[in-house]
C-alpha cells in the first residue's frame, strides 16, 4: 500500500513557523524598547517622538505589512499543526502520558491562543485606533497619542492585570519557543545549544518582566 502526500511537507511547515516565530521575537525586542520610553518620566515626550517617527516612516509601513504576515503565518500554521497533531492520535491513551518532556512545549497552543486573544484586545486599543478603524477615545489628543491612551487603560487595575497575565503566558510560550526555533531550523550544537536554552530563558523573562513594568509604573508610580 503506497500512500501519497499532497500537502506541504511537515518540515517545510516547521521551517516557516520557526522563521515567522523568530521574526516575531525580534519584533518584541524592538516593541519593548520603544514602550519602555514611556517610563522616562517626561510625560511621554520621547515616546511620542518615536511614535511619530515610526508612523511617518515608509520603511516602517512596509515592516508593518511583513509583521502582519508573520503573525498570520505563525498563527495559521500553528493551528493547522495542532489540528493535524490531535488527529494523528484518534484514540487517546487511558493512562496519562508519563513521559518527561520540555516543560512548556505541551502548552504551546494554549499559550498561543491566550496571546492571540490578548493580541486582538491590544490591536483594538492601539493599532486599530491609529488606522482609524476604531474611534479615538476622548482623552487622547489624536489617533497617534498612544501615551494618553496607555495612561487611562493602565490606571484601570483590571486592565493592567489582564495585560500582565497575558505577558506571563507569552513568557511561557517564549521559554519553549526560543530554543525550539533553533532546533526546528536544525541549528543544534553540543556546545552552543545549552547556551541557547539559557539565552531563551533570559529572553522570555526579559519580555515578560519588561512589558509588565509598564502597567506597574502607571498603577503605582505615575
Amino acid at each position, binding site marked *: 500500500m*503506497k500512500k501519497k*502526500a499532497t500537502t506541504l511537507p511537515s518540515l517545510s511547515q516547521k521551517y516557516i513557523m520557526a522563521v515567522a516565530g523568530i521574526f516575531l521575537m525580534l519584533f518584541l525586542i524592538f516593541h519593548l524598547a520603544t514602550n519602555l520610553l514611556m517610563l522616562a518620566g517626561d510625560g511621554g515626550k520621547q515616546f511620542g517622538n518615536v511614535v511619530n517617527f515610526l508612523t511617518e516612516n515608509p520603511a516602517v509601513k512596509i515592516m508593518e505589512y511583513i509583521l502582519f504576515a508573520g503573525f498570520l503565518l505563525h498563527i495559521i500554521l500553528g493551528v493547522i499543526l495542532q489540528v493535524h497533531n490531535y488527529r*494523528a*492520535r*484518534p484514540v487517546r491513551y487511558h493512562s496519562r502520558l508519563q513521559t518527561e518532556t520540555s516543560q512548556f512545549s505541551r502548552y504551546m497552543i494554549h499559550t498561543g491562543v491566550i496571546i492571540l486573544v490578548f493580541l486582538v484586545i491590544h490591536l483594538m486599543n492601539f493599532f486599530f485606533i491609529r488606522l482609524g478603524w476604531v474611534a479615538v477615545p476622548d482623552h487622547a489628543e489624536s489617533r497617534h497619542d498612544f501615551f494618553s491612551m496607555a495612561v487611562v487603560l493602565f490606571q484601570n487595575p483590571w486592565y493592567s492585570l489582564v495585560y500582565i497575565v497575558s505577558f506571563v503566558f507569552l513568557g511561557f510560550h517564549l521559554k519553549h519557543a526560543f530554543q525550539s526555533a533553533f532546533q526546528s531550523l536544525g541549528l*543544534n550544537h553540543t556546545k552552543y545549544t545549552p547556551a541557547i536554552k539559557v539565552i531563551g530563558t533570559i529572553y522570555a523573562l526579559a519580555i515578560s518582566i519588561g512589558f509588565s513594568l509598564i502597567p506597574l509604573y502607571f498603577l503605582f508610580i505615575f
Partner: protein
Amino acid sequence: MDFKLKIWRQKNAREKGGFRTYPINDVSPEMSFLEMLDYLNKQIIESGGEPVTFEHDCREGICGSCGLFINGRPHGPMRRTTTCELHMREFTDGDTIVIEPWRSKAFPIIKDLVVDRSSFERIMHAGGFISVDTGSAPESNSLPVSKNNSDKAFDAAACIGCGACVAACKNSSAMLFAAAKIAQYALVTQGKAEAKERVDKMVRQMDAEGFGYCSNTYGCEFDCPKGISIDFIALMNREFFSSKVCRQIPGRYTRKV
C-alpha cells in the same frame, strides 16, 4: 509478587476493544515483563480463555517488536529498556499495571496489544537504503569516514524501529525514527550520493502515513530504549533544508538529443 493487570483487549482491527482486568499472583521478581505475560496467558489458556496477543521476537532488546505502553510510558517505567528487558522487580508488589497498545493513526491495532508498524517499513522503502552493486565487499579503507561521523552514524543506527518515539510523543510524531534512519546514511560517505532525494522521500512518506508533526517536546528522546538523540532531528531538518535549497534537478546536465 501479586499484581492487577489492566489490559487492552481487542478482537481485530474492526471491532471495538476495551480493558479487562486480570489478577495475577506468585509472579517472580526475576521474570521479565513478557515472561509475566506468558505466565498470565498460560493461566488464561488453562481456564479456556483467549490468550492476550502481544508481539515479541528476540527478547533481548534488539528486534524492536515488543513495544507495550505500560503505566503511561512506552516500554514501562525504566529508561533505556525495551519491554522484553524490563523485569518485574521494577514494580511494587500489589501494583495495578495498565497495559495498552501504541496509539497512533499510523499504527492501527491488529489485535489486543499488537499494532501494525508497516508504516515504518514504508518510510524505509521510500529511501532508507543505499544503491550499491552487489558483489564482493569493497576494501574497507577505500571510503574514508571520520571517526566522529562513524560513531554518530552508529548511534543513529542503534534505532530498532520499535515505535516508542511515536508512542511517547504527544503528537504521535515519527520524526525521531525518520531522523535516525536518515542520519545513519547521511553521516557516512556511502550515503552521501543519494542524500538529497532520500531525506525528501522519507519525510514525504512519513507525512503520508499520518504521523504528527514534531513540536520539540523531546519526549521521544526520553523514552527511546536506545537513547537516540534529538540532535538527529536537527540533523534531519538541516538535511531537508539543504535538499530544498541546493536541490539537484534530475536531468539538468544532460542535453536532449
